[in-house]
């Protein structure tokens, strides 16, 4: 079953209201108060979030409340709600700047960080210029932040922070305030210190105003208090009718006192303002109430009416006064979470890719290692055929290399045929000439013939024979000396 908790925090107590979607429709599940022994709230801001959170947690546990969804309600002076008229074509950021400027005019909000939410209402043409009414509400960021933190500590998911006037509107929507109606209503919310007033056409807010009051004055000097209320009402009505929207008349006044003990205030006011019907608000028909639950209906009707309106967010209905002071912070928070989520997703993706890649590589390594092991075992015990074939190949290769190297030697080897050269030189030796030294060197390809002869003629004849034989490339006489009978000579023949 879907349900939601409404919480209204004050210095001395917390009001709790729970509604849920049951077979009876929206049903009131709980109406209670948590008393706070020590003050944990200062000027609307939760100063001791742990303490308050513990109290709320204990309450949830004691009452077996399983829902985690919660909505908080705040009221003036910690919340500010108005309708202002702005040029039609402003962007959201520009509207926000205008609203901040508007808030800065009030002393309590000057230079404070504010949580703002706004909604464009109807378009209006003012002196030929297109404008738009903007409903906005604001509170201190410190306040909304402290609520968010506290309820998070209490294990609750704070889905919204509502303001009293807008909550009452939700509570009375389609009961006292009908969307189809064109009736102009003045809705008055009387709290202990503030009188909040809103003029609505049907269920659409047109003008909002608040006045500081003290309801204790009602007990002290009732007549004076009523007179002051009447003055405030008249001022508001006149201002609206004369200055704001001309020609529209307020046809009724609905009063929502914050305490059940002021439930006769409408009668007192009616005496002073007989021309406008005045009635008390009655949001009770909005939800189903189990009679067996002994619920104080007056409490629900007045003191808890704001909370009831706040919890009616459960309806999830589009309404012109649906503002949420948590939107900005929630959006920022969501935005931060989204960034973290994005980073986390990116890192997870990278890690996943890394793990998959690593697994793939490791798997492949293992598969290859297994294959290598198998091949190793095969190679370790080669078959006889392989041994024989390898041996054949090795032998062939060796022979091939030996043949190749031998052919290289053969190419390099020169066969000078010494015998031929020498024998040729010897054969041509004439009778009267003899050789004493024959020297043949491969290095300079020279055959050097040293000998003796009885005549010079024989030497020259010999040279002539050697040259004419064609066996040598060149024949030259190096030296020839000695006496006529015994001449020594040296002839050099260049071999071919």
């Amino acid at each position: 079953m879907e349900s939601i908790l409404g919480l209204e925090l004050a210095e001395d107590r917390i009001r709790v209201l729970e509604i849920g979607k049951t077979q009876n429709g929206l049903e009131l599940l709980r109406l209670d108060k948590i008393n706070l022994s020590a003050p944990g709230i200062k000027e609307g801001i939760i100063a001791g979030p742990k303490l308050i959170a513990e109290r709320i947690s204990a309450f949830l546990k004691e009452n077996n409340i399983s829902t985690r969804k919660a909505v908080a309600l705040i009221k003036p002076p910690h919340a500010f709600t108005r309708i202002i008229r702005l040029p039609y074509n402003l962007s959201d950021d520009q509207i926000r700047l205008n609203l901040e400027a508007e808030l800065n005019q009030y002393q309590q909000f000057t230079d404070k960080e504010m949580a703002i939410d706004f909604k464009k209402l109807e378009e209006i043409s003012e002196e030929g210029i297109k404008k738009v009414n903007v409903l906005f509400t604001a509170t201190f960021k410190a306040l909304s932040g402290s609520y968010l933190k506290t309820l998070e500590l209490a294990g609750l998911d704070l889905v919204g922070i509502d303001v009293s006037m807008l909550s009452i509107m939700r509570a009375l929507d389609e009961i006292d305030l009908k969307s189809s109606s064109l009736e102009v209503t003045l809705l008055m919310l009387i709290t202990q210190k503030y009188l909040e007033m809103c003029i609505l056409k049907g269920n659409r807010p047109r003008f909002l105003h608040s006045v500081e009051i003290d309801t204790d004055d009602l007990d002290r000097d009732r007549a004076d208090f009523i007179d002051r209320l009447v003055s405030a009402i008249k001022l508001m009505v006149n201002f609206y009718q004369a200055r704001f929207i001309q020609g529209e008349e307020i046809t009724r006044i609905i009063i929502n006192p914050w305490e059940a003990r002021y439930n006769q205030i409408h009668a007192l006011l009616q005496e002073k303002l007989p021309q406008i019907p005045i009635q008390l608000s009655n949001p009770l028909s909005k939800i189903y109430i189990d009679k067996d639950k002994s619920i104080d209906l007056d409490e629900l009707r007045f003191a808890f009416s704001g909370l009831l309106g706040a919890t009616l967010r459960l309806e999830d209905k589009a309404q012109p006064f649906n503002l949420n002071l948590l939107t900005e912070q929630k959006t920022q928070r969501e935005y931060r979470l989204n960034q973290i989520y994005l980073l986390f997703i990116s890192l997870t993706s990278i890690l996943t890719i890394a793990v998959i890649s690593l697994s793939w590589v490791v798997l492949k390594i293992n598969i290859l290692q297994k294959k290598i092991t198998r091949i190793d075992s095969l190679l370790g015990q080669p078959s006889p055929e392989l041994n024989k074939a390898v041996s054949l190949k090795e032998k062939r290769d060796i022979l091939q290399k030996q043949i190749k190297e031998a052919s290289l030697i053969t190419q390099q080897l020169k066969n000078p045929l010494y015998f031929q050269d020498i024998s040729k030189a010897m054969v041509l030796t004439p009778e009267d000439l003899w050789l004493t030294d024959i020297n043949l060197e491969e290095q300079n390809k020279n055959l050097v013939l040293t000998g003796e002869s009885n005549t010079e003629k024989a030497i020259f004849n010999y040279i002539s024979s050697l040259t004419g034989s064609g066996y040598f490339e060149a024949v030259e006489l190096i030296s020839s000396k000695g006496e006529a009978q015994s001449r020594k000579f040296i002839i050099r023949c260049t071999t071919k």
Partner: protein
Amino acid sequence: MYDKIKILKEKIKGAQILFKKIPKEKGILGIVLVLLIGFLLYQSFIAIQIKKLKAIDFQFTSQKKLIDFYNQIIKDANILNNELTEKENDFAQIRQGFVDEEELSNYFADFRALVKAYNLQVASLDFQPQENIIDSNREPLTYYQRLKFSVSLKGDYFNLMSLLYKLEQGSSRFEINSVRIKQKNADPPDLIMDMEAAIYILMKRG
């Protein structure tokens, strides 16, 4: 199905808005951070494993090639056998020109016997250290070495020339680098032949 597409479209739109909302500096910082973490992860874990994988893959490919090669060898065993026979026949002729490393002493014993057979005397026989034969790539040949030696022989002209002829025309490669024949005595004619030569040795390897 249509609803799912609609939801998906809205989610994509939401994500786009989210991306647009992120300030540029934050976005860049986020991207850098994510990339940095990705890089560090890659460097710390994946890069090492990829290197290992590459090494193993190389090993595997090599082994696979070896296996393929062996299979091919087994398949070509008959061809190899024929080739071997052919090469053996070729080499049988070639090796006659070379002296086996272990046959060197026999070779020179034969040489001395040959000299003697030609009525010549060995005056001296000096060896130089065996040397490597360098190929065109300036690498030493594996199976062959050169042995240079100088020999001095005494005898008559006819026998010296006959021996020279025999050596040059012999089956072994006998490289003569220089020959010097000089007369020792005029009567009876007695010659000395100094010769620098080299033979090629077939080395025993493996």
